[in-house]
């Protein structure tokens, strides 16, 4: 069996409304958008571009920090494996809704992929706002049925020998993928390493690469 589907015994009809919540900052951005749109001062498309920046660039930095620290500090890595909620909270990133975190480590044999099959539970505290595709029914169903195919569509082709584990998020438990540290990054500082970690790599639809975030010469 190349894909394990870890299904958790929990009531998916309960508690999920908590996910539809704006932080003060998210709500303020929407408020500014409303004011400016009503006054005819902006095109909502301009705001979408800003929100996109928040989703893809600013939010996931917290998670990238966690990953870079795990790569650099074996003690922290061990703590993250044993008790991800506490290890992540030690860096100042705590879930607003008190949900638990679990870090799933990619290894040479196993690749991890995170989904929320029934809605869009997502580790907000470390990854910011979820991308649109994460919430899309196509991803939510196909990530379980055909994870290899989904990854290929993201441009990630894994060797057939590599096992893919799919983790189904819940309102109470969120997953953070710890990608494998790329080769050739020995001697890099935590800050440099964090730049190699993309949002998608922490969901499992990408891997960390030594050259990401840097232009090739």
């Amino acid at each position, binding site marked *: 069996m190349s894909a394990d589907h870890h299904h958790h015994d929990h009531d998916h009809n309960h508690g*999920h*409304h908590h*996910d*539809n*919540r*704006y932080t*003060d*900052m*998210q*709500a*303020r*951005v*929407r*408020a*500014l958008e*409303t*004011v*400016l749109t009503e*006054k005819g*001062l*902006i*095109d909502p498309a*301009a*705001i979408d*571009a*800003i929100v996109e*920046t*928040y989703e893809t660039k*600013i939010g996931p*930095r917290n998670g990238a920090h966690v990953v870079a620290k795990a790569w650099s500090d074996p003690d922290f890595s061990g703590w993250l494996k044993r008790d991800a909620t506490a290890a992540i909270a030690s860096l100042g990133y705590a879930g607003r809704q008190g949900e638990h975190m679990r870090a799933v480590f990619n290894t040479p044999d196993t690749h991890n992929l995170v989904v929320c099959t029934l*809605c*869009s539970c997502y580790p907000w505290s470390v990854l910011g706002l979820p991308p649109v595709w994460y*919430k899309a029914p196509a991803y939510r169903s196909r990530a379980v049925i055909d994870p290899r195919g989904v990854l290929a569509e993201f441009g990630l082709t894994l060797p057939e020998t590599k096992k893919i584990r799919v983790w189904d998020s819940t309102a109470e438990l969120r997953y953070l993928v710890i990608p494998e540290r790329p080769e050739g990054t020995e001697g890099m500082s935590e*800050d440099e390493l964090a730049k190699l970690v993309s949002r998608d790599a922490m969901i499992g639809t990408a891997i960390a690469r030594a050259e990401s975030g840097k232009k090739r010469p």
Partner: protein
Amino acid sequence: MAVHLHEKGLFTWGEWAEALSVEVRRQGRAEDGSDYFDCWVAALSGLLVTKGVADAGTILALQQSWQRAAEATPHGKPIELANDPLR
């Protein structure tokens, strides 16, 4: 967006740069610039108030309205301001 509003003549580039730099240098801001977006939002809010586009109360009321709308919106449905039950 700031560029866009500047082009509309809402404020001069100098005013924007000043507002943003005040926020970025405000005490308690992150040294690594990771809260740049927070600064940016604060600067824009401040300028809109200064320029009389909206008062602080209106922006805060809208912000709270969006939060109520988010909580009232069922999962999988787009969050719209009209979903605020108090609106």
